[in-house]
């Protein structure tokens, strides 16, 4: 899990990013490189969530950065770069997913179970995860994306609204609905009070 930065850090980061964007508009290679490095890891994670394959995710990240550069003149100065860029990435990812046959989804090896956890608890946790995955797969595509962006990639509600081009209230509604569905699955596995 990532530590969330404080308000001062966010202000400083936003000012730095705005400066980089202005320099990129003038064709500054170093500024573009700086902007890429700020967003690369998160962009790759979001791209991977969309494409389900490492190389497809890398292709998408490259395309999204170059597309953002091509239309940097349309970026509204003074607004945060992140949501604008991730909107490009998500739109391109959704289009790519529709238009081409993707490589097989990567199987990421699960972490080895801790030896300190009792085998029956481990089995229960495995069962819970399996049910959670089924419930997650059953969510509507947009709802699942909202959950993953919010819970796993740390985007705020307004940022997700801008990325997915939906109202802020709709994002919160998706979050509540998804939470309700996922909690229902988790309920039987909740630790019982002694």
């Amino acid at each position, binding site marked *: 899990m990532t530590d969330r930065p404080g308000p001062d850090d966010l202000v400083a980061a936003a000012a730095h990013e705005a400066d980089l964007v202005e320099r990129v508009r003038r064709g500054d290679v170093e500024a573009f490189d700086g902007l890429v490095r700020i967003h690369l890891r998160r962009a*790759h994670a979001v791209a991977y969530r969309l494409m389900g394959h490492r190389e497809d995710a890398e292709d998408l990240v490259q395309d999204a950065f170059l597309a953002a550069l091509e239309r940097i003149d349309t970026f509204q100065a003074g607004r945060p770069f992140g949501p604008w860029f991730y909107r490009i990435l998500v739109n391109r990812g959704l289009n790519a997913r529709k238009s081409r046959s993707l490589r097989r989804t990567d199987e990421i090896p699960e972490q080895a179970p801790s030896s300190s956890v009792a085998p029956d608890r481990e089995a229960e946790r495995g069962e819970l995860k399996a049910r959670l*995955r089924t419930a997650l797969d059953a969510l509507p595509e947009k709802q699942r994306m909202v959950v993953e962006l919010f819970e*796993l990639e740390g985007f705020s509600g307004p940022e997700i609204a801008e990325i997915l081009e939906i109202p802020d209230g709709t994002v919160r509604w998706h*979050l509540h609905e998804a939470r309700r569905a996922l909690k229902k699955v988790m309920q039987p596995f909740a630790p019982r009070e002694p």
Partner: protein
Amino acid sequence: MNEPLPVPPADPQLRSLLAEVCPVPRLGEAEVGRLASTIRARAVLPLARLRRPDPWWESAAGWLKPLVPLAAAAAVLLALALRAAEPEPPHVPAALGPAPGVESLLGSILPPAEYELLASGAGDAALLLTAALEQR
């Protein structure tokens, strides 16, 4: 009125379970460097285009663009004003046709000898014409 839904509070247990259920390969330093270099190499040309100053016609086109509708409106007004200032052409009834020439008129009225006398200016024009009209 309905209260807007608040953002649901953080749920660390759900978050950690989801992270296990939907794992994502995180990029290491070396992978970040490799991918960033690839993107940088592909961005060289677009960045060079951004560094190149606009040719004069592109900047001129930029500030001329808002003038296009004004120019079109001015042209229409000018055309209307010129049309209003133009004098009306004299009204000629189409049925009358062109007026016959004086010479051919006199030639048809006067006998040839008197016409020649009139044309040479030797005879009394009024007298000759009156006599000719009376004969007809």
